[in-house]
């Protein structure tokens, strides 16, 4: 008798435990639909977030300044709202995207995953969007969504609603931005000799061979450099415009026609790069390239960083005589990066609270001051006093003015084109394939579609 009672109790408890995940899933699914309909007030969201208690934030951890800022500014701010911030630092954002996709594939749906928020843009956002693994259009629904201009007709609001050409649909909220800025070592490269176009760079390298190199694709810094070359050598003279279309709209034939002059230029430039014609040296990542720049082996170094010269002169990553230059003229790629929330987030309310905090004025100002990353919010949406505070928090520029940098921007390439261009560089410039470019691109596109 007693045995039967105990075993039935245990069976009941086991059944209850098994049913728990489904109860939790239903609660999360309900929260999601209620929030997206606008049925919840922000105070209710804050309360639910406090009950959830923690948020798993995944972001690229390669910048120490950023890591310190997350631990010493964001974590306490979240703690004040009753949420523990669990900062997961990645070597590559793709790892978090892979995790979300793998968990979704393993059947861990809404409320069951392990990623609450990811700092990403471009191909990574496209990967999640394509598999429909995003929480939903939350960006305009959070209070600090007012810090952004959402009117699609406004050209200044382009980057808020399109991420590398992919419509965001409000599924990610802008957090930071970057411009691809090149720095020159003034101790070795005087202002008079500084190139401002790619042809001038080639002339300079013919006089000083081996004094430049760029990070190699498939690293995103290499991809961006190659894209700028393609914009500059666009045979129609339309710069970045045709590269905003997706691969389906543009087609590999047209892409090959537009990319041919640029890739030919890079192929011809190779013997003039660091290491000369015998052993051309493309650094594998930003740290290696910065090392070459510091040692004076290269006179110019390009990477993402609007305020990079200011912050890196302080940390010692750049030489003290480094200055920014306007290169290439009219084609300096500018983009935004975002905080996205995946659909299988285990703590949806806490994720929303984190995203809202990241878009707040205070967070943006402290990030600008302490980390040197440009603000993601739109200054013209703020009160004049707040906008002034934001502008005053920015690190200084060396050798250029903010207006000059703003006057030479170009949009980033459509995310679906990035992998094809990267594969073409590897085949055409690195492996010196003799196939026609159109064929290389068609094969790359077919391989990616598989």
């Amino acid at each position, binding site marked *: 008798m007693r045995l039967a009672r105990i075993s039935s109790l245990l069976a009941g408890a086991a059944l209850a435990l098994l049913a728990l995940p489904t109860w939790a899933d239903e609660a999360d699914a309900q929260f999601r639909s209620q929030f997206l309909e606008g049925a919840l007030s922000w105070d209710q969201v804050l309360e639910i977030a406090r009950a959830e208690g923690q948020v798993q934030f995944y972001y690229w951890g390669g910048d120490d300044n950023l890591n310190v800022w997350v631990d010493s500014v964001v974590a306490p701010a979240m703690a004040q709202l009753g949420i523990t911030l669990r900062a997961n630092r990645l070597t590559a954002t*793709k790892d978090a995207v892979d995790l979300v996709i*793998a968990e979704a*594939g393993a059947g861990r749906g809404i409320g069951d995953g392990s990623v609450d928020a990811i700092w990403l843009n471009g*191909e990574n956002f496209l*990967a999640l969007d394509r598999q429909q693994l995003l929480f939903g259009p939350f960006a305009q629904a959070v209070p600090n969504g007012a810090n952004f201009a959402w009117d699609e007709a406004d050209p200044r609001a382009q980057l808020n609603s399109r991420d590398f050409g992919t419509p965001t649909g409000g599924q990610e909220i802008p957090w930071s931005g970057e411009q691809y800025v090149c720095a020159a070592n003034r101790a070795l490269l005087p202002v008079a000799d500084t190139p401002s176009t790619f042809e001038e760079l080639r002339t300079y390298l013919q006089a000083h061979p*081996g*004094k430049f190199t760029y990070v*190699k694709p*498939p690293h995103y810094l290499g991809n961006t450099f190659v894209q700028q070359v393609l914009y500059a050598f666009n045979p129609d003279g339309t710069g970045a415009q045709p590269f905003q279309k997706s691969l389906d709209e543009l087609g590999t034939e047209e892409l090959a026609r537009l990319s041919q002059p640029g890739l030919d230029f890079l192929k011809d430039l190779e013997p003039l790069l660091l*290491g000369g014609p*015998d*052993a*051309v*040296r*493309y650094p*594998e990542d930003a740290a290696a390239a910065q*090392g*070459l720049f*510091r*040692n*004076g*082996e290269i006179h110019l170094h390009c990477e993402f960083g609007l305020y990079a010269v200011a912050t890196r002169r302080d940390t010692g990553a750049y030489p003290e005589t480094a200055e920014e230059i306007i290169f290439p003229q009219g084609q300096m790629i500018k983009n935004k990066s975002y905080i996205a929330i995946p659909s299988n987030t285990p703590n949806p309310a806490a994720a929303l609270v984190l995203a809202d905090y990241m878009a707040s004025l205070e967070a943006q100002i402290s990030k600008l001051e302490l980390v040197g990353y440009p603000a993601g919010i739109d200054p013209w949406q703020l009160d004049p006093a707040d906008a002034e505070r934001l502008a005053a928090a920015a690190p200084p520029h060396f050798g250029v003015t903010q207006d000059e940098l703003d006057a030479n921007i170009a949009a980033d390439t459509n995310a679906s084109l990035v*992998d094809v261009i990267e594969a073409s560089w590897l085949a055409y410039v*690195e*492996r010196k394939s003799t196939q026609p470019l159109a064929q290389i691109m068609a094969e790359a596109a077919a*391989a*990616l579609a*598989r």
Partner: protein
Amino acid sequence: MEQARLDWGAILALAPVTLVLGLLFCGALGLAIGQSLGFAPWYGINTFPDFSHFARLWSAPAFWAGLGLTLYYGVVSTLMALVLGVGLALALRKSFAGRRLFDHVYKLPLMIPYGVAIALAVLLLGNGGIASRLLAWVGVISDPAQFPRLINTHAGWGIMAVYVWKQTPFITLAVAAVLAGMGRQTQEAAAVLGAGRVRIFWEITLPQILPGLVSAALICLAFNLGAFEAPFILGGGYPDTLPVMAWRAFNDADYGRQLEGTAIALSIALVAGALLLLSLMAYRALERRHGRV
């Protein structure tokens, strides 16, 4: 006649090793073979059995160039470590001033990880490194580009320097242990009978240390063939050695390349396995010819 009984003591003692080897090693090997032949449902790909990945890989010139470089860096550095290691072990038999200290110092590279050794190579041998800066300080060169390019070339001096630096003490240790155990009676007898130093080494010392030498050298060779960090950081770029090629395939955003990466990894295993088997067969033949087996 006694019935054969299961030796439970031995089975239990061998169980942990068997489990680890079976599950982790053989299991991973089985999964790798499956994935390289197209079985990868976790990436949404199932074309088993599909030899196209191997076919595509083995028909690419980059693969053969990479294989050649891998073998070159592996074999040449093992041979250099062999020569230096045996020489050092023989020299350490004598006693000299500071020998006790040197006995500890020469083992230091064994304790320093490969990553640190690679950093040392970059710091010392790079164009912006210490050697280059010293030459600039005394005025021999005035620009980093004038320093000869030692690392990041396909000649692989940096890579081989790291391997030799780490593996010479390993071989010295193996050989010195054998020498210490052997004693010097045979060598002394030969010297008394009038044999020269070179003849003593070739005909007496070398056959005695050969077993330990072969196993240590094969361990070093196996490591060098599969090593990734040194060719990645100190290598000359395209064409890469095979482990670096495999890493690039695994790191790619395109999931289809994971299968290509697995095929490269298995090719490395095949080549290394074949090389080891041939070396052991040759060693066995040598020993049999000398009547020692």
